[in-house]
């Protein structure tokens, strides 16, 4: 029974830790399916984390914070779109620039605004997303098995967690069941086909990049106002890159993306829960556990997980051939 309780606790924390990864991963999915590689997910999340925490701290409203986070992320998305779609620049370089920009700007603004060593003040009350408890969660807690699953694993997360997981079927539906999805996928595979069919390549790609910005914004706001209570320097800690790895692992498919993010979330949860694992004399230090998600990232990116074929026109600015 004790094992079961531990398991539920680890899975519960898996869901929470997977949420920012999932939002960022879906953000990247929209962008890359449209043929725009985005390694600036990390920077956008970081910028959104800071602005959401800052505005939430100043106004006391987490919803205004969320809006500010999405706005900040959208500004960076617009920058990426301008560089890589309008001016046909290199998408990787633009993404790297966005990461540097976010990493420096957040600390700089935080320090000059709040004078707390590059953090925002701690959030409390209306400045944070509170857990939502499902009806009868407390009453059912005592029921064996189903009780803990319902009241601990499913209930008691912030609204953004549910939003993130609802985005999985929504994204699948948009991608494969709507006109917008068909065009989005087409523009990432063969923009010339879209162009000659009389549809704007630039318009589609900007739309995709904007959706990417919104989702990264939610991801960042979740980190600073729901998972934690305030912004700290570099708080994204490589989640944007892990989300990219998950995206490749998932071969750019929404449901697979969810499972990949849950896997990474599980590793993070295990690292959090079992700090030093004692294997009969040999102690695995906490650092090894903390490094696990990153090690898995490397393993996945090194291509041990089968061949991942990215959208064919990914990374290439669209120029009418001559």
């Amino acid at each position, binding site marked *: 029974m004790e094992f079961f309780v531990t398991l539920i606790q680890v899975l519960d924390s898996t869901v929470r830790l997977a949420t920012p990864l999932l939002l960022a991963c879906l953000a990247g999915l929209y962008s890359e399916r449209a043929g725009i590689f985005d390694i600036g997910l990390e920077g956008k999340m970081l910028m959104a984390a800071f602005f959401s925490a800052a505005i939430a701290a100043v106004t006391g409203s987490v919803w205004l914070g969320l809006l500010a986070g999405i706005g900040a992320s959208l500004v960076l998305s617009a920058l990426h779109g301008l560089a890589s779609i309008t001016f046909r620049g290199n998408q990787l370089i633009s993404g790297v620039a966005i990461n540097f920009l976010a990493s420096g700007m957040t600390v700089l603004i935080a320090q000059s605004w709040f004078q707390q060593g590059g953090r925002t003040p701690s959030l409390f009350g209306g400045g944070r997303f509170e857990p939502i408890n499902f009806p009868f969660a407390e009453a059912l807690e005592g029921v064996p098995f189903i009780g803990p699953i319902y009241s601990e694993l499913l209930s008691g997360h912030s609204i953004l967690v549910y939003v993130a997981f609802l985005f999985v079927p929504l994204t699948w539906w948009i991608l*494969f*069941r*709507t*006109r*917008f*999805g*068909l*065009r989005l*996928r*087409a523009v990432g*595979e*063969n923009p*010339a*086909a*879209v*162009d*000659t*069919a*009389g*549809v704007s390549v630039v318009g589609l790609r900007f739309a995709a990049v904007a959706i990417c910005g919104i989702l990264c914004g939610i991801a960042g706001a979740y980190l600073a106002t729901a998972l934690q209570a305030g912004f700290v320097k570099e708080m994204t800690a490589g989640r944007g890159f892990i989300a990219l790895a998950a995206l490749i692992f998932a071969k750019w498919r929404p449901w697979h993306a969810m499972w990949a993010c849950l896997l990474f979330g599980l590793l993070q949860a295990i690292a959090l829960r079992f700090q030093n694992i004692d294997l009969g004399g040999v102690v695995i230090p906490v650092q090894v556990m903390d490094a696990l998600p990153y090690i898995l990232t490397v393993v996945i990116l090194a291509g041990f997980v089968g061949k991942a074929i990215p959208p*064919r026109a990914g990374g290439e600015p669209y120029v*009418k051939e*001559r």
Partner: protein
Amino acid sequence: MTVPAIELKGISKAFGPVQANKDISISVAPGTIHGIIGENGAGKSTLMSILYGFYKADKGEIWINGSKTDIPDSQAAIASGIGMVFQHFKLVENFSVLENIVLGAEDGGLLAPSLAKARKELKELEEEYELFVDPDKRIDEIGVGMQQRVEILKALYRKAEILILDEPTGVLTPAEADQLFRILDRLRSEGKTIIVITHKLREIMENTDTVSVMRRGEMTATVKTAETNPQELAELMVGRKVLLQVDKVPAQPGKPVLEIEKLSVTDSAGVERVKGIDLTVRAGEIVGIAGVAGNGQSELLEVLGGMRPGQGSIRLNGEPLPLHGPGSDGQARRAQHIAHVPEDRQREGLIMDFYAWENVAFGYHRDPAYKRGLFMDNAALRADTEAKIEKFDVRPPNGWLTAKSFSGGNQQKIVVAREIERNPDLLLVGQPTRGVDIGAIEFIHKQIVALRDQGKAILLVSVELEEIFSLSDRIAVMFDGHIMGERLPAETDEKELGLLMAGVAGEAA
């Protein structure tokens, strides 16, 4: 006089220094098939891309059915009832046929009703025009012939009344090409107006009502097809009389230059592609290898050219050549005086994003003539390029253009110039005139014969029987990795070679 379906007035278009279209006017009557013929790079595709809104003209007017129409993008062209089948199909490869047809012409935000409607309409179109496709197959699962039908259906689904086809038969087998023209004939009888761009005279003569000829960006003539003949069209295209036959004196074969014994080649998948062949090429003769593509000819050339390893023995001027390991790469082959015009110039012969003068150096970039101390002497290289461009009549004559901005024929001239001008003992030539226009074919053939007349050995691989017949002094036929037999061109005919190519054994099997 009926109102023309299409009228172009004074269209001009330049790409940087290249004037692709110069003041072009053309008028096409409704319900006809109009051919536009011209060499590669004459500006045919550019003109049609302007009509389809893919490029924007610098100057000029477009009139559709008697009213002046502005076509700033493809959407406007589609709205005016124009559909275009590009030379390189604009299809999304991992989408189904149905999805490709619907893309951009959906009826609403949700896909399901659009797809259902398209499926129904597709069935009607298929029956009306006998254009059969499987709507649920993915594009990468179907052949090019069917892909082309998808492109035509795409245009018809968008209610196109005017259909433009750019080099539609380039990727088709003769049977598929015949079928295509039957479809076009059918479309014409339904009242559609069709424009076909091609550089093949036969197709123009057999299928069009009127024909316009383009040369170097200008429209040189528009005539009724019934009132012209291939010779006249060829002259109009090239601007001078064209030899459709290669003029050459009988060969004077000398000592053996290339001696191949029991050569076998296994590809990376472990399949034996060349199965122990013997072949000799003498000085001053052209040996042509005929065969259906994929019977080991490519692999033979690649081993000789140093692009893949083989087993067996080859001697060049009596000296054995290594077939694997050191001394068997392309660089070494060139040092051994073997020049190679590879089959696929865009992948193997050139780097498409590099300048012409850089491409002229490849394979010979270690030549002391291009060296100044530790560095390359780019000035010397550019001067050398200029000389080659002039001698081989590469157009436009500008070494500072990237390889991809030349037409196919001029790209090939750059490769041939690079290899022939090295004065090799043995020249390997693969598909020298694939996708090359008439003027350039004639020129390249002349250069190859001239090299032979200097007493060099030439091994030619071509899938064009006509080319094999007109160039070769001796013909070897390959089938399934074997040489089925050798013939003299004067003592054989297409029928006999066709049998050998199909694997029906001759004297040697």
